[in-house]
């Protein structure tokens, strides 16, 4: 991974480095330089892992938004919701940076502790041989296959089990997208059944579930009404919000899921 080769293992690492780099006086750092330097780094990562690049791009997008906001003259009318959303993202970014810095310093302390601890060696000799006869046979009930298994385990990186996590993360992202999709369709369509709303993804259970969660989220926000006349009958979804609600619902979706 190129990002790692450059010494930045994550987007927060890089941003922290740019802001706190001791080459510049802390109070002289300008957002503009940071954004430019950040983008330059992201550009260098052209052929890096897609996941990594995405994370870096997310931060870059927020930075650009912040930069744009600063460039705008004060009296320009800006949607208050958008403004709030930007502040929220900025605070989130700030929190992540502080967290990152905290653990960076904790890691340094742990490193120093291990250096100190390395100055001593433990006693490892174990039992005097006169007592060894007493101890039970340690290989009792072991089979050649146990040895084989132990060897394979010693040779191979521990199999990294990854139960469910990927799809949990995926659901998170897709709910956001599903809400966007609903907001595109619902306000102008009149009452629709949930079945109609999910027709195009009907063969993918996960996608249907995601849309169901999106509808629930909008219901929670009070911008849709749900109606189900029979048990197990069709669920009707109706938009009852205003155009402003539509904007709010859009920006209210938290990209980072911090």
């Amino acid at each position: 991974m190129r990002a790692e080769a450059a010494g930045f293992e994550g987007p927060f690492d890089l941003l922290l480095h740019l802001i706190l780099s001791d080459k510049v006086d802390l109070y002289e750092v300008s957002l503009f330089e940071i954004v430019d330097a950040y983008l330059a780094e992201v550009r260098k990562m052209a052929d890096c892992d897609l996941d990594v690049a995405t994370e870096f791009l997310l931060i870059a997008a927020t930075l650009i938004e912040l930069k744009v906001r600063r460039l705008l003259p004060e009296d320009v009318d800006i949607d208050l919701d958008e403004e709030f959303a930007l502040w929220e993202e900025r605070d989130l970014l700030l929190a992540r940076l502080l967290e990152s810095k905290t653990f960076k310093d904790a890691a340094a302390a742990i490193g120093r502790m291990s250096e100190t601890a390395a100055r001593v060696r433990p006693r490892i000799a174990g039992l005097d041989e006169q007592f060894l006869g007493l101890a039970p046979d340690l290989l009792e009930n072991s089979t050649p296959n146990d040895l084989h298994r132990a060897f394979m385990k010693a040779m191979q990186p521990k199999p990294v089990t990854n139960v469910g996590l990927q799809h949990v993360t995926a659901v998170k992202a897709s709910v956001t997208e599903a809400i966007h999709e609903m907001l595109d369709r619902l306000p102008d369509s009149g009452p629709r059944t949930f079945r109609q709303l999910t027709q195009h993804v009907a063969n993918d259970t996960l996608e249907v579930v995601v849309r169901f969660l999106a509808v629930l989220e909008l219901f929670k926000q009070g911008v849709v009404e749900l109606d189900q006349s029979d048990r197990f009958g069709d669920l009707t979804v109706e938009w009852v919000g205003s155009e402003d609600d539509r904007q709010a619902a859009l920006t209210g979706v938290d990209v980072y899921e911090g």
Partner: protein
Amino acid sequence: MDLTDEQQLAHLSRGIEALVMVSADPIPDAELAQALGTDEVTIRTICVALSDSYEDQDRGFQLAYIAGGWRFQSHPDLSEVITGHVLEGQNQKLTPAAMETLAIIAYKQPISRAQIGAIRGVNVDGVLRTLSQRGYVSEIGRDEGPGQAVLFGTTQLFCEKLGIPSAKDLPPLGDFVPPAHVVEALEQTLRADPADYVASE
């Protein structure tokens, strides 16, 4: 057997010395207490007294409570004598990424892969593999939630490598929260309000 208190104390002291001497790993209070037919508080008191006596006598070894148990170890003063002699273990240094991930796990355990990734901002699969291969972290459970995510925590070896009794004995995380001027610098740099910005220049 009728023993005076003093004799009893001497017997326990000697027993502890002998047991710790032949144990290949740190030996917990409870195990010493059981082997010597006494309670853990007594064991702990005697161990501390023994440890002090070695220090007072300027011995080249220590009795230390590390990774959940008592062990004999060389005195830190003598690291040069020891390192010159004992074969170094193949302990390559961890990368900064691995160190930071280790710190996150140490302070936030039990913690899932996804949670670590969220704090680091990147996928941590490779680093986690290194750390568990080294034996510093391991799976210590499963999340009860729908995904039943694997939860990671630090190991005894981790405590041994740091010379601490348990992960609870790490310095509090609060000690590392950035000082006000750093927070302010970060805050200022990311300030979005043009009015503030113009004013501050």
